[in-house]
C-alpha cells in the first residue's frame, strides 16, 4: 500500500499556477526528498500535503484515506519547520506535549511518549528549558521530537537543517537518517541542498516551476539526469556542457564540437544518435581522466590548464576545450600550472547527451 499518494494535484494563487498536475506515489517507509531551487513549489507541495494550504484541484491520500479536505491534525502527519517554530513561552516539555494536550490524551500516556521521544533524540536534560535557552541544533531536535510524540505515519520536513551551520547540519543529517532507519516511517523532506537530498533519499523528486522534472533514486538522478535542468542542478562541482553535433566516423557515432571529437560507441541509447543531430554533451568533472600522454584514440583530446582549485581531498582543474571552460576533478597530489598542456580522456558511457532543442536526455 502507498503511504502518501498525490493525484493530479494543482494549486493556483489567483491566475498564477504554482503546482501543475502533480502525481507522486510514496511507498510505505520511503524517504522521499523534494529538491529544487527556491520558488520551484517544493515547500508549497509539502504544505499542501500537510493541509496547511488549500489545493485547487486533485486528491491527496495518506495511508489509503482521502485526506484532501481533512484538517492538518487529522491527516496523521507530523511536521518539522526550518525556523523550528517552537512555542517560545513554553518549556521544551510543554512544546512536546502541546498537541497531545490539545488532543486530550491522558497524562500518563503523554508522559510516556515524551520520555520515549526524549530518549530517542537525547533531549532529556533539556525538558524544563525554554526554546530561547537552546542552541540551534537542540531546537531542531525538539522540533523533530514534537513530530515524534504525535506517533504519526508520515513525517514532513520543511528544510529542517537550512538554519544550522555546516558542521551541525552534517551531524543532524546523519541523525535524521538514523532516525528513519529506527522508526521506518514515511518521510517527505524538502530541501534545496543536493548533498542532503543525495545522502538521505530513497528517491528524489527534482522540481522546477511547479513540475516534477525527475523522480528517481539518487544514483539514477546523478548519473542519468532526464534533462538539462536536472543535470545542471545536481552535482557540485557542476556538470560540464559542450554544445555540438553528432557525426559519423567509420560508421560509429561521434560527438563533434570545433576541434573536439569524442566517440559515442559506448553510449547507452545508440538508436537515438542520428547523424547531424544538434546536441549538448554533458560530463561530470570526475568522469574525465587527465594525463600527460594522449589517451585512447577517439576519446582523448589536448587541453590547456587555466587554473586549479585545491579543495583538500581533491582538486578542481579548469581547462579550455573547444573554446569552453570545463572543470576536471583530479587527485590533489599534483598541482597544475596555468598554461600547462595536458591530455583529457572522456568516458562516454558515463556521459549524458541532451537534445539541444528540447533539452531532454537522448
Amino acid at each position: 500500500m502507498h503511504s502518501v499518494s498525490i493525484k493530479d494535484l494543482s494549486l493556483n494563487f489567483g491566475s498564477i499556477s504554482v503546482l501543475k498536475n502533480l502525481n507522486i506515489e510514496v511507498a510505505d517507509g520511503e524517504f522521499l526528498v523534494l529538491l529544487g531551487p527556491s520558488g520551484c513549489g517544493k515547500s508549497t507541495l509539502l504544505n499542501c500535503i500537510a493541509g496547511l494550504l488549500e489545493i485547487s484541484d486533485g486528491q491527496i491520500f495518506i495511508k489509503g484515506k482521502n485526506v484532501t479536505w481533512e484538517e492538518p491534525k487529522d491527516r496523521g502527519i507530523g511536521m518539522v519547520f526550518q525556523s523550528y517554530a517552537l512555542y517560545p513561552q513554553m518549556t521544551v516539555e510543554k512544546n512536546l506535549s502541546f498537541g497531545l494536550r490539545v488532543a486530550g490524551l491522558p497524562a500518563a500516556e503523554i508522559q510516556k511518549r515524551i520520555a520515549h521521544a526524549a530518549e530517542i533524540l537525547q533531549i532529556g536534560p533539556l525538558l524544563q528549558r525554554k526554546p530561547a535557552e537552546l542552541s540551534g541544533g537542540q531546537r531542531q531536535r525538539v522540533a523533530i521530537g514534537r513530530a515524534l510524540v504525535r506517533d504519526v505515519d508520515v513525517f514532513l520536513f520543511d528544510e529542517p537543517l537550512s538554519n544550522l551551520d555546516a558542521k551541525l547540519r552534517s551531524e543532524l543529517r546523519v541523525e535524521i537518517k538514523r532516525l528513519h532507519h529506527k522508526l521506518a516511517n514515511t518521510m517527505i523532506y524538502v530541501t534545496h541542498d543536493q548533498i542532503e537530498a543525495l545522502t538521505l533519499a530513497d528517491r528524489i523528486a527534482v522540481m522546477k516551476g511547479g513540475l516534477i522534472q525527475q523522480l528517481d533514486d539518487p544514483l539514477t538522478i546523478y548519473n542519468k539526469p532526464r534533462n538539462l535542468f536536472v543535470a545542471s542542478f545536481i552535482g557540485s562541482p557542476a556538470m560540464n556542457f559542450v554544445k555540438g553535433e553528432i557525426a559519423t566516423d567509420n560508421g560509429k557515432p561521434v560527438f563533434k564540437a570545433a576541434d573536439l571529437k569524442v566517440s559515442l560507441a559506448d553510449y547507452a541509447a545508440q538508436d537515438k544518435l542520428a547523424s547531424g543531430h544538434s546536441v549538448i554533451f554533458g560530463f561530470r568533472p570526475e568522469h574525465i581522466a587527465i594525463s600527460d600522454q594522449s589517451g585512447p584514440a577517439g576519446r582523448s583530446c589536448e587541453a590547456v590548464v587555466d587554473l586549479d582549485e585545491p579543495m583538500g581531498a581533491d582538486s578542481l582543474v579548469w581547462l579550455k576545450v573547444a573554446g569552453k571552460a570545463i572543470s576536471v576533478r583530479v587527485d590533489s597530489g599534483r598541482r597544475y600550472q596555468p598554461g600547462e598542456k595536458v591530455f583529457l580522456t572522456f568516458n562516454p558511457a558515463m556521459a549524458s547527451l541532451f537534445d539541444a532543442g528540447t533539452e531532454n536526455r537522448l
Partner: protein
Amino acid sequence: MSSSLSSTEPRGSRPKRFLSPTSIMIYSALLVAAIYYLIPLYVMVMTSLKGMPEIRLGNIFSPPVEVTFQPWATAWNSACTGLYCEGIKVGFFNSMKILVPSVIFSIIIASVNGYALSNWRFKGSELFFTALIFGAFIPYQVMLYPLVIITRQLGIFGTLTGVIVIHTIFGMPILTLLFRNYFVSLPPELFKAARVDGAGFWRIFLQIMLPMSLPIFVVAVILQVTGIWNDFLFGVIFAGTKNFPMTVQLNNIVNSTQGVKEYNVNMAATILTGAVPLLVYFFSGKYFVRGIAAGAVKG
C-alpha cells in the same frame, strides 16, 4: 625621538572630544525645545499655587510668595461646572467609567480582528481590512449625525453605554492595524505548527499568540487610554449631561462666566485633567518604545 613620534600616531580607539561642535549644536537645540515646551507647564504649576491677589500682580513667571494648595482643593471638590458646584472629581470618575470598559472592549475586539486578518485570511479579508483602515480617514463630522440617530434608535444615546460603544468602534481601525501588523510579523510557521498540533482558532490565539504579544498590548493600552481620556467631542455628544467626562467638565469650569475668573483653580483643574495621560507616558515610556520596536521581537 621615536617614542614621542609614536605617541602622536593614531593607535587604539579614537579619542572622543567631550564637547564637539556637533554635540553642542544638538544639545542646545534640544534644550531650547525642552524649555519651549516646559514653560507653559511651569506657568500653570506656579499659578495654581498662588492666591488670587498674587495673581493679579501679573508676574506669571515668578514663583509664589505664599504657597497655597487651596486652588487644587477647590478645583477637585467645589469648582462650578455650570449648575453644579461639585468640582472636577465628578468628571474624573465619569472619565474612568468611560475609559476602563472602552479600553478593554476595544482592545479585545481589535486584537481578535488583527489575529484573524493576519492568520485566518478569508475571501475578501484584504478588502475588509482596507475598508476598516479607510474608516480611519473619514472625518468624524461626517459620521456624527448618523451615529446620533443610530444610538438614539438603539436607546443608548446620552448614556454611558452609548459613549463606550462609540469609543470602541472608533478605536477599531488604528488598533486593528496595530495588531494585524504585529501578528503578521510573528513567524507564520508557529501558526502552522500549532495547526498541525490540532489547535483551533481560539486556542492558537489564547495559548500561542497572546503570550507573545505583551508589548503590542501595552502600546494599544497607551494609545487608547490617552486617546479616550483626551476625547471631548464624543463625550459631549454621546455621554449625556450626567456622564460628561473630565475634559468636558474642565471646559465648563474654565469657561463659566459668573464672577471672577479664578485662574489658579482653572490651572489646577487643567493639570489634574492632564495628569492621567502624563503619568501614562511617564511610566510606560520604556514599554512604549519597546512596543514600537516590537516588530523585531523573535521567537
